């Protein structure tokens, strides 16, 4: 196959899989059971890591803005204002989803890949179950449902990090930070982050599920699928970020 045709071939296989995934679930009772399980596994179990990373990044952004941007010629709210804009516009949606592509994406790819090589997916097919829909649809919908909450937690934790540095580090007063965080607040920026993250959540769950579901071989291939899923999810998130930012801004 020509090198240029390979990505097209892969994209075609991805579309084929998605056509199988988005079909009516055979048993709604089983679907909801899986859906709740995936929301727990992909969303709730990611809250701690998302909040921890956001907390420290919020603190670091605040320090960097204060040390490197703030000058006597700039208003005192600059640090709080820029910290808020970075968190709302990019970090809590795009960068947080890049982090989730590593955690959740590799989890999905390795779980499905292991199910494939241990013939658990074949077992589902033999039973007459649409394995793609049964396994992948709850993951996609579960992550898409949970991502706005993760974005919200990330924003709150980032602000908490910024406040923590104002209290502990003493480089900015809480009043200046609060004024900066509130200054010129545009509610649309929050929605923009949430909308972007929903697209990213779809990319993470569907692309990593594609790589895991189509594994052919053994443990080495499962590892490769996991790596490929993280790499491709990250690339696609960055590409999508450009287009979404341009469209939504």
């Amino acid at each position, binding site marked *: 196959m020509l090198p240029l045709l390979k990505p097209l071939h892969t994209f075609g296989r991805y579309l084929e899989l998605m056509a199988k995934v988005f079909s009516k679930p*055979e*048993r709604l*009772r*089983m679907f909801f059971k899986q859906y709740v399980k995936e929301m727990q596994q992909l969303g709730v179990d990611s809250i701690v890591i998302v909040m921890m990373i956001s907390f420290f990044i919020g603190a670091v952004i605040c320090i960097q803005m204060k040390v490197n941007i703030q000058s006597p010629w700039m208003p005192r709210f600059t640090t709080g204002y820029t910290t808020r804009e970075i968190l709302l516009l990019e970090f809590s949606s795009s960068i947080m989803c890049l982090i989730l592509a590593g955690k959740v994406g590799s989890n999905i790819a390795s779980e499905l890949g292991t199910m494939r090589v*241990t*013939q*658990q997916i*074949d*077992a589902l*097919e*033999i*039973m*007459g*179950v*649409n394995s793609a829909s049964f396994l992948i649809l709850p993951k996609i919908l579960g992550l898409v449902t949970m991502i706005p909450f993760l974005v919200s937690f990330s924003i709150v934790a980032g602000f908490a990090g910024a406040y923590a540095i104002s209290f502990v580090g003493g480089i900015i007063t809480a009043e200046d930070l609060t004024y900066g965080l509130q200054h010129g607040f545009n509610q649309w920026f929050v929605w923009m982050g949430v909308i972007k993250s929903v697209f990213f959540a779809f990319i993470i769950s569907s692309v990593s599920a594609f790589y895991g579901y189509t594994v052919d071989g053994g443990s080495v291939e499962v590892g490769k699928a996991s790596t490929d899923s993280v790499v491709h999810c990250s690339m696609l998130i960055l590409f999508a970020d450009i287009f979404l930012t341009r469209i939504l801004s």
Partner: protein
Amino acid sequence: MIELRSIHKSFEDREVLCGINARFETGHTNLIIGQSGSGKTVLMKCIVGLLQPTSGEILYDGRDFVRMSKKERTLLRREMGMIFQSAALFDSMSVLENVMFPLDMFSSENLADRKRRAQQCLDRVNLIEAQDKYPDEISGGMQKRVAIARAIALNPRYLFCDEPNSGLDPKTSLVIDDLIHSITQEYKMTTIINTHDMNSVMGIGESIIFIRQGHQEWTGTKDEVLRSDNAYLTDFIFASNLLKNARHALIEKGQK
């Protein structure tokens, strides 16, 4: 009954199955035997629909599985049970949940009835005490028995076993063979077993097909296997020195 008519399967230029014809009778344990790489797993995958044959017909009680619609295929698959080489239990579910899974998906019974049916199946394979354990907490032989319980949960008409004794000690293999044989007769199923275990061949081989390099080399029963003069079959069956010596002893005894 399952009937294969001139099954061919190729992967690009390589022909793996070359015109297999066979009849697998209901209530019998039908064995497909052959060396590793002979094409028996590909044949099994074609029969259950995991692979599409390049040409030929697969008839399930007269219904052509190859040419039927996707919906008909899905419905037919609900009449099948399969035991995989690796047992293929869902590792995120307990033993009981594994057996209940096909019932949860396709049975309209209430939860209590589904649970009772799953427990009956586990009782049939003597594993009721392990119902709350997870697959990684039980032995390989027990996993195979759970797979049997899961396969029979929906009272299938067709049972497929891909190397069910793989990785098991001879004693446990006998238990699994006896279980498959007795269940086949009890549920009046058409059972096809893919194996290269000689104990299975001699124990439950009511009907045997020997595949060699994708060709159907020999067909017969366990009683005919020992008397066969097919060189390839003899070479395969008596591959171990122990069996070779036993055969020589048998022949010498017959000559005396």
